[in-house]
């Protein structure tokens, strides 16, 4: 048999390595540059990170003894050693009560917290605030996301601009296959499916650029289906919206054909080939057909005729959009 | 097969052929139990198709729905044919058990087969009618769900009829020996199982769809 001491030393090294790995994850949460919810940009992501820490600590009650005691058992009760050997001992009531009871208690506590947090952080639950939520309609294409601001009557591609400290109410669908919309720094992901509508509520607490993406494989361009979420103050947000209204493209049938094709937002930008308004880079649409989102979600024809030539129509569009939403 | 194993105290889940069929009686034990287990897995398949069907009742996509296409008369006739065939198969099983003679056994089995084939013929006619009225599977999700559930049952019935013919062939070559008896016992389980599945189809799809 191989020399026992080196085997035990290697065993000890192994579990130490795994302990280090696990603790490294918690250390990471201090770093500022990291993408994802370990560097949260909003209270939902904060709460999720906290919950993660809580779960790890609770489960460690059960896992840590395994990590610590297993190498010790293998070494202490080794064949060549002198420890007590009781070949027929195979049951102890007290130990059984412990090994069943402690996990039951841990799971019990985790269950209570799980129940509360799942309901509190439900993506479908509107966020309580004294500000009215910003409505954003999201459509997943291959391989880009279209963001429609129905109250403002504009849309963007490749960049989502949001005001800070104001709840955002997302209504989502897919124009192609199943996808998942995700801005990790702000909160939960949510699936989007063709002919179905899902909901999501997020809120940003600070300004910054956050990574957003599709996290459900949908073909060759999946890895490129990313966008930037830029959170700014409400005033700057209003300014950007105005600039989009004056300088953006019309989302007409030609543009829509580009959206329906399999490409990324950069390909669409190149095809539309002129300078977008700030904050570039992105594709900006100053006019969007009425009820575009619901037409896509219900497989109904798009109301192209509703697209007016003048920019006055933009405010009419937004009024109609608000009315339509109120009658949903 | 030994009768001395720990698990072998006779608990016949199928037809209890009884002592006069000594060898077949013990050979039956494992094979019939195994067939029951197989039927359980088949039951799960049908159960899931039922559940899927129920969730897709609303998916008619503007096309014809159950009240447009389904007819009680046809379904009722099919139900009667299948129930009768289960009865006649029961008579066949009894005549096998009580040694009532080859002629009687084959007689009952032939009647069962004819009833089963009658069921299939009627069902195919019904499907033809449905399709010609616009109720074809690619029309909508609802019709797809219908046509993945009901014809699967029909396919099972067709398989059972084919099995019956194969057993007739075995009888011609080998007389009614142990393997034939075991085969008949298992076919009986399948036949009654298909009858039960049809009852659920009749209740859920036809009665449920037309009320």
């Amino acid at each position, binding site marked *: 048999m191989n020399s026992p001491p080196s085997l035990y030393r290697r065993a000890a090294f192994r579990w130490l390595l795994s302990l280090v790995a696990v603790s490294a994850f918690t250390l990471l949460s201090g770093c500022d540059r990291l993408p994802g919810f370990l560097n949260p940009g909003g209270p939902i992501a904060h709460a999720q990170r906290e919950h993660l820490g809580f779960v790890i600590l609770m489960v460690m009650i059960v896992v840590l003894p395994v990590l610590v005691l297993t190498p010790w058992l293998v070494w202490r009760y080794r064949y060549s050693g002198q420890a007590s050997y009781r070949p027929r001992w195979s049951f102890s009531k007290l130990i059984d009560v412990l090994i069943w009871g402690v996990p039951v208690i841990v799971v019990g506590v985790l269950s209570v917290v799980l129940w509360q947090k799942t309901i509190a952080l439900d993506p479908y639950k509107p966020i309580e605030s004294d500000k009215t939520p910003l409505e954003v309609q999201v459509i997943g294409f291959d391989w880009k996301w279209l963001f429609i601001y129905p109250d403002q009557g504009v849309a963007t591609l490749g960049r989502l601009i949001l005001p800070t400290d104001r709840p955002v109410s997302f209504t989502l669908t897919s124009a192609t296959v199943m996808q998942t919309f995700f801005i990790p720094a702000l909160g939960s992901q949510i699936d989007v499916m063709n002919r179905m509508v899902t909901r999501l509520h997020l809120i940003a607490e600070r300004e910054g650029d956050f*990574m957003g993406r599709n996290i459900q494989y949908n073909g060759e361009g999946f890895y490129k289906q990313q966008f930037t979420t830029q959170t700014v103050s409400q005033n700057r947000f209003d300014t950007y919206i105005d600039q989009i209204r004056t300088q953006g493209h019309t989302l007409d049938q030609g543009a829509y054909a580009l959206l329906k094709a399999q490409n990324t937002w950069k390909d669409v930008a190149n095809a539309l080939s002129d300078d977008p308004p700030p904050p570039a880079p992105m594709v900006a649409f100053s006019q969007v057909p009425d009820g575009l989102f619901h037409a896509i979600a219900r497989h109904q024809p798009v109301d192209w005729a509703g697209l007016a030539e003048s920019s006055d129509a933009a405010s009419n569009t937004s009024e109609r959009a608000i009315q339509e939403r109120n009658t949903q | 097969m030994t009768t001395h194993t720990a698990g072998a105290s006779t608990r016949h889940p199928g037809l209890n052929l009884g002592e006069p069929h000594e060898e077949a009686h013990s050979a039956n034990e494992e094979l019939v139990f195994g067939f029951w287990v197989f039927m359980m897995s088949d039951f799960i398949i049908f159960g899931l198709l039922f559940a899927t069907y129920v969730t897709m009742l609303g998916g008619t996509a503007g096309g014809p729905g159950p009240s447009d296409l389904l007819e009680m008369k046809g379904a009722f006739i099919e139900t009667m044919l299948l129930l009768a065939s289960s009865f006649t198969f029961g008579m066949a099983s009894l005549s096998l058990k009580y040694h009532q003679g080859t002629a009687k056994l084959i007689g009952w089995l032939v009647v069962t087969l004819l009833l089963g084939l009658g069921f299939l013929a009627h069902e195919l006619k019904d499907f033809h009618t449905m399709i010609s009225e616009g109720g074809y599977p690619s029309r909508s999700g609802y019709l797809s769900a219908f046509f993945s559930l009901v014809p699967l049952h029909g396919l099972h019935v067709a398989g059972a009829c084919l099995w019956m013919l194969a057993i007739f062939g075995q009888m011609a070559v080998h007389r009614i020996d142990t393997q034939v008896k075991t085969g008949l016992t298992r076919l009986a389980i399948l036949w009654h199982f298909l009858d039960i599945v049809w009852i659920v189809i009749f209740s859920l799809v036809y009665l449920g769809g037309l009320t």
Partner: protein
Amino acid sequence: MTDESSFLLGRLGWDALPFWDMIQNPTRESIINGIIASGAAGMVVLGALAAAALITWYGKWKVLWCDWLTSVDHKKIGIMFIVIALLMLLRAVIEAAFMRAQQAFGLGGGFLSPEHYGQLFTTHGTIMIFFMAMPFLTGLINFVMPLQIGARDLSFPVLNSVSFGLTAAGAALMMISLVLAPFSTGGWTGYPPFTELQANPGPGVDYWIWGVTLSTLSSTFSGINFAVTIYKKRAPGMTLMRMPLFCWTALCTSILMIFGMPPLTVATGLLALDRYLDFHMFTADLGGNMMNYINLFWAFGHPEVYILILPAFGVFSEVFSTFSGKRLYGYTALVIATMAIAVLSFTVWLHHFFTMGQSAHINAVFGIATMLIGIPTGVKIFDWMLTMYRGRVRLTVPMVYAVGFLILFSIGGLSGIILATPSIDYQIHNSLFLVAHFHNMLIPGLLFGMLAGYTYWFSKAFGFQLDARWGYRAAWSWIVGFMLAFFPLYALGLLGMPRRTVAFFDPVYLPWTIAAGLGALIILYAIVCLMAQLWVSIKRRDALATPGGDPWDGRSLEWDTPSPVPEYNFPVLPQVNSHDAFYRQKCDGAPHESPARYEPITIPKNTAMGVIIGVSGTAVGFGLTWHMWWLALAFSAVALVAMIARGFARNTTWTLDAEAIERQQRAWAHQLEQFEPITRQWEQSEANRGVPVPPNEGAIQ
């Protein structure tokens, strides 16, 4: 796939060849990927030719046909299942290494095309689950379980051969898909509408559907076979509560197979109806509902992962008990825990799609149910630790796997509880954290269990041990390689990197993907060690021979037979009086009782049914994939005719006379007297002839 279809070749065209695209549109990307794909295809063709050439050279066709392919002996079939598993393990690990290499270079691009990468992660997952893990555990249960319950064979030996044929058929289809490409890019889960005709009209998804269907049918039949055997063929006196724990896990696994496979049959069957007959079960339009597929798939998928892990738990129970020289701690609790896990596994499937939009209350209920399964699993871990407590632990190769399992699997359990929490899962679902978790369960759990079982029972199957030196190298490389390849993925998942992504743009991910790439290299080395171990062991088989049959001083009935085991297993069915039956006999001083009298034994004859069904399965799957309807129809008819013809078969057994059995037993008893009994410190050396020093008042020597 061509646009026009011919009757004979369906939609098979020149573009199915892996180098076609490279020749037609040479770009840097298509050339690199074309070379890799052609290399893989070349390996398949060369491998098949080499195998045929070697068999011809050594004149072994008759042996292959008569002793193996047409055999209905559970031991032979079990070994063949494991052969498939090991070959497919090799292929799927190479695929994994390519993916890790791609991601190590994946900042902004890499060398693999997205299409190729899509095929790689799909085949990797599909093969590992359906053609590595399932055959491996089916093979182990096949070989070991009848011996442990004191039976002669499974209840339905011909069905066993058919199960093997179906798995081989699916594996063959997977290998053919390397030569006549492409395969699906829809993942091993195959979610519609991506896998519907509109998004993926080509043969890829169809290859996947039929390969998986063949495997599913095989496993359903194996499950039936195992369950009936355990219920009906236990030796006299072996009540259920006296069975070795491996048999309990085999029983629960087979129940899960019987009830858990049908949902997948339904899901893939309905998807096939959508693709072939223009049904609308899962399409987005005309009333289809893709969420039904997801529910059906995971109604299979969750029991499936318990099918994968329970046999490994069974192996570990045997290994811990044997190599601690001690009774398994808490047998009754372990049985209850195993049954609880089996039952609960049907109640948690929704945790695979918390993010699909159902209500928070539903999510919470399933989250709690998922955590509940963690309780019996945790109890099992503690029970194994308590088996070592106050034992005399020998760190043999199987034990290295077992101890590594205890530590690493617990970490996987932690990540499982994290994922089971819906509010956290909304952050890490479909990220690399998920990938890390399930590999954390499958590699230290399933794979270590299978490799430990392979090492533990190898000498029983072949009459000689596996070389221990290479065994240790393999085991430690697996442990270190796994940690280095997968622990970084936990970090990447928390940082928001998705699964199934060929490349990325954030340099923060790069150090982790490089580390994972190095881990993959170490795992490749572990595979090399396993191959070397087999090679060296075969070369040294005379020195490593253990004809005595009990190299590990085992506790259960399979060790009360010569190695390799005669076809009939036991000359007389043993009478069992206790738990750990063989150990009890050794403690009573009568390890190998000579029977008072010998009876002739009836043995089932060989049959070509398994081969016929297997070949038909491949042909039907291939025909349906490429729209060669005549091929599919013809071989469906062949299979049907074979099944009907089998019903006419009589005289399907032969009888071994009592004198021959007595001769074999006496020869073995004579051998036993000649060999030097050894104490445990020599058990992995050449001194071990399979005869242990008997226990002293219960204490293993």
